[in-house]
């Protein structure tokens, strides 16, 4: 990212604070993460058969991101698609 060579420190302070406070304001409990994980599994399960035991959710306060890794069933026996999506 381009920065002005000698940027006045007032702007630097404001930018630092904005970043810091947005991440600090994100309070996140383990309970909330479990609920999110269950909701995600339910949502994805509508379209793919999810390997539920291998689902991993990571929350990073510093970058303010939630990353989810949701592996799908590869075993042909368990991979009947569209289980909940049938009409």
């Amino acid at each position: 990212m381009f920065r002005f060579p000698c940027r006045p420190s007032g702007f630097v302070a404001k930018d630092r604070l904005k970043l810091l406070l947005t991440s600090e304001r994100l309070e996140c409990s383990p309970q909330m993460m479990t609920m999110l994980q269950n909701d995600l599994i339910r949502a994805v399960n509508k379209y793919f058969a999810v390997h539920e035991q291998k689902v991993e959710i990571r929350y990073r306060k510093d970058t303010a991101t939630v990353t989810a890794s949701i592996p799908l069933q590869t075993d042909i026996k368990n991979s009947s698609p569209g289980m909940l999506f049938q009409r």
Partner: protein
Amino acid sequence: MSEIIVITSGKGGVGKTTVTANIGLGLAKLNKKVVVVDTDIGLRNLDVVLGLENRIVYNLIDVIEGSCRMKQALIRDKQCDNLFLLPSAQTKDKTAITPEQMVKLTEALSEEFDYILLDCPAGIEQGFKNAIAGASRAIVVTTPEVSAIRDADRIIGLLQANEMPQIQLVINRLRMDMIKRGEMMSVEDVSEILAVDLLGAIPDDEAVVIATNQGEPLCGKDSLSGKAFENICRRISGEDVPLMEFRTKKGVFKRISGIFKK
């Protein structure tokens, strides 16, 4: 009807006590009956800022424990007959009282006074919990520094979690020369970051230091900060007073600052 206001900041040394003393005096000069309560048990401060340190006989703990009557502990201010101080104890610590006792105390004071101002200790521990217990309005004091603003944000979060009905911001020690150069965050920058209602802004003024040295708060006197404090008091009492001097200067500054931003 009386109003119970807590003055807090999180970080120490941003000017809570000075702000409390000056708002107290300012409201008293507006013909309100005001009591300022020093809730910082163990570290008494408000008495010296008001210049009343030699008149203390009883304190807040004595009142709570019932060793004296409320009237005996209240000290009348030198400058203004409507202003009273309830000093804190120096021998005990913050755990000597409970939030419930503070609620009782403020309720007793509200029968007598229009405004009860609670000078909160720094930190977020017992002393903070005691001070906010009885209050229906909070004034968060900060300076335009990274550390003070971060702590103010924490305090605002805690006040919101405790369902404080009204939270307002006072930005202290602003240096217009530095803001002009872009080397200090402006009133707008700070209030944008903290996102609470702005009650007022006070310039960094040597008159405040002199006033504290002399033990005579300067609210309403002929100085930039004295005027700023007076405006804050008028806003507290419900008047609509614009943030004049800062806004005009900022208009020019904002335009210049636009050039430096990508």
